[in-house]
């Protein structure tokens, strides 16, 4: 298989372009040919400063410069490390320091507008006027690391997934198969380029498939989601991607008057991934925009994770979502029974496994279970990443090599039925809110930093089919503290809200309530069960309405 760089280099087209639509300013454009020329200039400069094989941190706002720099790194055989711009808040600056330390990056690249504000990191702009013709292809093979995909901010040690040139190329080829007989022609979207779905699913897919690319910034679309639909309509985009919340928020925020002149009939792939997919979201979006030409069959639920570059399975173009209902009791018992009864729980299929093999196993024994049995999802195939950067122990624990090959333990729960993969929950402690990965230890750390009398805490996610996933923190108040538990809860919640921008429910408890293992590891799963079963004695609690509803439902099923 020709690798991504070689293939793109072979025919960069002058009739394909990348367009950035900045908020309130004129659009910026580059053809694939111009992009290639600029990337070669960047590569020459990187090679000249000895960066081949070394990590380069890329701190860019949404726009075209990121793609030039990223491609330049790959052209130079340097390891690209995309990360969010650290614009506000001390914690974000700390995070960049940890990324630099963890990745070993000694060069930070940014754009003109941010070089001064990032001068503390010795950030530099690239020089794209260097002679691109002196560029020579780097010596890379399929196992060479192309870039590090860091998942969202960890206060503890960041985890950089090592994506190789081989795994990237394989995953991009997989997109071609999902597209079917009709190659993608124009891709549009707004996911950040430091997110795996934004980087691979939008930007790199467009280059690999020789498609036009239309980019908006996440901030612009969250503020006014009509911009996303307008870009699709104006640029005749046929492929877009978003987490569930993007579809839900857009359905809710776009007013009737804004639909005037909109035509979404061009859109044949609207991929939903990166967080639990709610059937209510898909239905509401399809209903809301049917009158402007949106077709329900465009909705294409998928499943993936950075450890598999991006996509594992995705509904193929034109099929539309597969929705099946199961009895609540069978889902709780882990052996699903389809039903057409009104109390059935509808689940959305995430597509059929193809080039990436999928197996569902008993998480305790690792033994494969039959169709319809819920277990841990494991994945094998050429899209698997090389591992976690600088963390061989975590790599060995997650990418397990046995007699039948190398398998990724995804930490996600689900089942296979009639060829479709359904994702039902999560074994790992990661919490996913609005497509963003949150590590429980980061929330616990933030809580401890908010108040000196904050003791041990346990953060975890709870979810239901209607409202998605929510963060809960069980937080000890130290014995010596004379503080009012309500004030204490407020201070902790304020700090977390400011730092993470997510709504958190809190249960303030007495010391020695939060369980831990003999080695000191917080037993988050156990605390979650206690919380849902009503087994915690609270000094004070503040639950969001959605979390309160989940607790009520959970207690009812346990009575």
């Amino acid at each position, binding site marked *: 298989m020709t690798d991504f760089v070689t293939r793109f280099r072979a025919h960069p087209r002058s009739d394909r372009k990348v367009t950035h639509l900045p908020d309130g300013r004129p659009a910026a454009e580059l053809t694939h040919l111009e992009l290639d020329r600029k990337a070669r200039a960047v590569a020459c400069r990187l090679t000249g400063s000895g960066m081949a094989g070394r990590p380069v941190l890329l701190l860019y706002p949404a726009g075209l410069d990121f793609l030039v720099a990223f491609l330049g790194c790959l052209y130079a055989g340097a390891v690209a490390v995309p990360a969010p711009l650290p614009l506000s808040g001390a914690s974000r600056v700390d995070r960049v320091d940890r990324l630099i330390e963890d990745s070993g990056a000694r060069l930070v690249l940014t754009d003109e507008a941010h070089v001064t504000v990032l001068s503390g990191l010795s950030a530099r702009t690239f020089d794209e006027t260097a002679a691109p013709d002196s560029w020579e292809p780097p010596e890379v093979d399929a196992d060479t690391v192309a870039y590090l995909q860091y998942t969202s901010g960890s206060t503890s040690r960041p985890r950089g997934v090592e994506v190789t040139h081989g795994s990237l190329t394989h995953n991009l080829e997989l997109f071609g198969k999902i597209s079917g007989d009709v190659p993608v022609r124009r891709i549009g979207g707004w996911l950040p380029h430091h997110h795996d779905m934004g980087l691979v699913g939008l930007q790199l897919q467009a280059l690999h498939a020789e498609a036009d690319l239309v980019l908006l910034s996440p901030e612009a679309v969250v*503020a006014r989601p009509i911009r996303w639909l307008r870009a699709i309509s104006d640029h005749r985009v046929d492929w877009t991607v978003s987490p569930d919340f993007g579809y839900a928020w857009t359905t809710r925020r776009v007013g009737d008057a804004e639909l005037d002149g909109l035509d979404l009939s061009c859109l044949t792939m609207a991929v939903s991934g990166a967080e639990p997919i709610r059937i209510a979201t898909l239905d509401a979006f399809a209903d809301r925009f049917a009158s402007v030409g949106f077709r329900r069959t465009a909705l294409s639920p998928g499943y993936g994770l950075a450890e598999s570059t991006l996509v594992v399975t995705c509904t193929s173009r034109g099929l539309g979502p597969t929705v099946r209902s199961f009895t609540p009791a069978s889902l709780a018992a882990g052996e699903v029974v389809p039903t057409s009864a009104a109390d059935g729980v509808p689940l959305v299929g995430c597509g059929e496994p193809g080039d990436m093999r999928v197996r569902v196993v008993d998480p305790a024994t690792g033994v494969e279970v039959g169709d319809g049995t819920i277990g841990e999802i494991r994945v094998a195939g050429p899209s698997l990443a090389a591992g976690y950067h600088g963390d061989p122990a975590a790599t060995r624990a997650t990418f397990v090599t046995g007699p039948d090959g190398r398998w990724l333990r995804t930490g996600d729960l689900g089942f296979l039925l009639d060829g479709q993969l359904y994702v039902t929950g999560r074994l790992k402690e990661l919490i996913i809110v609005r497509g963003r990965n949150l590590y429980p230890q980061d929330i616990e750390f933030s809580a401890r930093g908010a108040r000196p009398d904050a003791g041990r805490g346990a953060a975890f996610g709870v979810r239901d089919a209607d409202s998605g996933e929510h963060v809960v923190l069980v937080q000890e108040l130290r014995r010596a503290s004379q503080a009012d538990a309500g004030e204490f809860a407020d201070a902790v*919640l*304020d700090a977390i809200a*400011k730092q993470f921008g997510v*709504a958190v429910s809190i249960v303030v408890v007495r010391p020695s309530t939060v369980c831990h293992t003999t080695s000191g590891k917080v037993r988050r799963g156990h605390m979650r069960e206690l919380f849902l079963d009503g087994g915690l004695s609270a000094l004070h609690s503040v639950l969001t309405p959605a979390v309160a509803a989940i607790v009520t439902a959970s207690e009812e099923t346990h009575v």
Partner: protein
Amino acid sequence: MSDESLRAWLVDAVAGYLELPPSQVGTEVALRSLGFDSVHAMGLCVDIEERWGVLVEPTLAWDFPTIDTIVTHLAPQIDRT
């Protein structure tokens, strides 16, 4: 403009973002305790600008965590415009 019309408008707006009945949106409770997050905060910014003609930061809901404190903060600015 009366503070009450701003307050009532904020209750309706917040109830809309959170898909809650307005009766569940207290003006003295922290918005985050209702499930208000950074995406809703962005929506609130845009809507305040459109309805009341004042520019606010996306951090408004963290700096002024309840509807009542937002009213106290915004009312003088709105009256000036």
